[in-house]
């Protein structure tokens, strides 16, 4: 298992390099100019100097290699330096956002907590409600519970989050006034009252995303359970005289969880990616919203960095899913 993991990690390096090259080139191909937002009164030669300062006048390959150096060497050194207090990177140029002129890493660090609390919580809740629903739907296939579950997950899956989000705002903020429609990032949880306030402002975005996640995962869980419920070893377990609880929760569930855990692990990068639309609807200033505004503003370094971080996470969680698969299923050994 360890050699497999190490081999996969080494193999991930060329994959990520290729992804970074593709992201870099795609963004260079995209229309837009870092100087587009400058006032027209700025003379062309000044603009050219500004461009040179940003390194935008060098050949593409040089720009790419410089970006790689910044991303993989300079930024980590800065981040470690900030955390430990040692000045490791000196005055080396950081990846600077074209919008705000501050380092990209700092902005991401500011945005990450909101995304993790809101989107992460919604994923946890989504999984927590999806698993029991999937198990019960499969165990009582075609029952009323199953039919309702199927309907709800169909709705959750097919109705887009920008619709459910706005619908919830109209009902619960505008009409009933129970929850605020705008997420307040400045809120600090210090006591019981502020905690309740935090819960209330998280309720709607979390509900919207949890419904969406639960719809997907409960379907996987149900299908996987159904697959296993019909297996011979389940009959064996019943013939042994095991109780239904043991048969379903020990024998069937443990075998059914293998593919579901993979799906859940592969969904984790989405949490970091942030739910772009939902964050926008509820004004949660997380990573998704950051990406959207960066795209609007032609902030290439920001877009590049965010997209590449997502790519790293996806590659990483693919590996984690594969390793989990090996741990859960004794028939799979990577040696």
């Amino acid at each position: 298992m360890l050699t497999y993991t190490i081999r996969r990690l080494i193999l991930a390096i060329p994959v990520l390099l290729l992804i970074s090259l593709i992201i870099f080139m795609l963004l260079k191909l995209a229309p837009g100019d870092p100087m587009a937002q400058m006032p027209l009164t700025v003379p062309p030669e000044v603009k050219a100097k500004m461009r040179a300062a940003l390194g935008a006048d060098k050949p593409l390959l040089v720009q790419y290699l410089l970006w790689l150096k910044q991303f993989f060497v300079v930024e980590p050194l800065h981040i470690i330096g900030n955390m430990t207090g040692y000045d490791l990177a000196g005055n080396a140029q950081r990846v600077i956002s074209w919008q705000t002129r501050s380092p990209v890493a700092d902005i991401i660090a500011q945005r990450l907590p909101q995304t993790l609390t809101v989107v992460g919580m919604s994923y946890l809740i989504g999984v927590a409600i999806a698993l029991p629903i999937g198990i019960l739907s499969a165990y009582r296939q075609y029952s009323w519970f199953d039919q309702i579950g199927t309907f709800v997950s169909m709705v959750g899956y097919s109705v887009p989050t920008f619709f459910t989000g706005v619908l919830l705002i109209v009902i619960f903020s505008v009409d009933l006034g129970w929850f605020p429609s705008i997420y307040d990032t400045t809120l600090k949880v210090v006591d019981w009252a502020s905690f309740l306030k935090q819960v209330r402002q998280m309720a709607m975005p979390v509900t919207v995303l949890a419904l969406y996640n639960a719809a997907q995962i409960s379907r996987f869980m149900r299908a996987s359970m159904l697959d296993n419920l019909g297996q011979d070893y389940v009959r064996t377990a019943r013939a042994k005289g095991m109780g239904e609880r043991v048969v379903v929760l020990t024998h069937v569930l443990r075998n059914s969880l293998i593919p579901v855990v993979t799906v859940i692990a592969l969904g984790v990068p989405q949490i970091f990616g942030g739910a772009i639309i939902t964050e926008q609807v509820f004004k949660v200033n997380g990573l998704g919203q950051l990406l959207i505004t960066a795209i609007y503003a032609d902030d290439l370094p920001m877009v590049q960095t965010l997209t590449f971080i997502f790519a790293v996470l996806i590659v990483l969680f693919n590996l984690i899913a594969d390793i989990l698969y090996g741990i859960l299923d004794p028939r799979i050994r990577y040696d």
Partner: protein
Amino acid sequence: MLDATPKAAAKTLVSVRGLKMYFPIHTGLLRRHTGDVKAVDDISFDILEGETLGLVGESGCGKSTAGRALIRLYDITGGSVKINGVEIGQAEQSVLRPMRPTMQMVFQDPQASLNPRMTLASIIGEPLEEHTKLSKVEKLARIYELMDAVGLNRTFANRYPHEFSGGQRQRIGIARALALNPKFIVCDEPIAALDVSIQAQVVNLLEELQDRLGLTYLFISHDLSMVRHIADRVAVMYLGKVVELSPRDEIYADPLHPYTEALLSAVPEPDPSLENTRERIILKGDVPSPANPPDGCNFCTRCPKVMDICRKVEPQFIEVMPGRFVACHLHGQTNQTTNQKPAG
């Protein structure tokens, strides 16, 4: 009556009366119940303590369903099943659970019937956990004892099913079935999925265990030679019904039902000179659908000796000679005289 005395010495362990197992068919927009697949349709027989009853028949005739229904792995449609004097035909699953140690089953597919994520020790040990109060050490001792009994190396205890060969897996299945000292074991085609060279090993193991532990088997198989080897009495099923039930030697020497005759004529003869003279009875046509069996005798569509009455009246399953039961108009009331001969 004199004939019956030696039999009376052996107690009846399993008594099946009018066992029915129908699987409903739902069709149409509203999924209405429009019919039933009569997988097992009104079968009755007894199994004596310590004997092996062979259950034979072609694919899809309801052998496996009968075996599973017998130990209530299904909720049966009708009839009564008494095992060791306890009626379990309509018992709730929760009532049945404590009775599971008495009746066990060895399944057909040794690969699929073992949980792929459990080690051998936990597969064999799980029923002990559920039904006994053994300590950890005692349980391990029992697991080793069972592994020895079926000829599995003790060092295999922590391996997973996929690491074994087919024959070894079937040994695991047998060890698991034996774990709780059952009296009655349904062997559902235990050798069908195995290599011929392994089949003999497994069958000999089953026989040896029967001698040692006094087990009673219902041995379901379509391998007629193997049934001849292992069974004391043989029941023949066709389309959900038992058509003939006789002691082994009699049924192989003198089959009463035309279907048994046809079935046995398909057994190859090892002697080439005899093989050439062997007369095969080739049945024409297909088995009718168990969802829509023919009127009268189920076998009337393919029977070489079919009579008019066969298409109208269903033959009763009666004892035509001592110990020999058959459901056929050829051996109906008309043959009552032969039945009475020994008495007269």
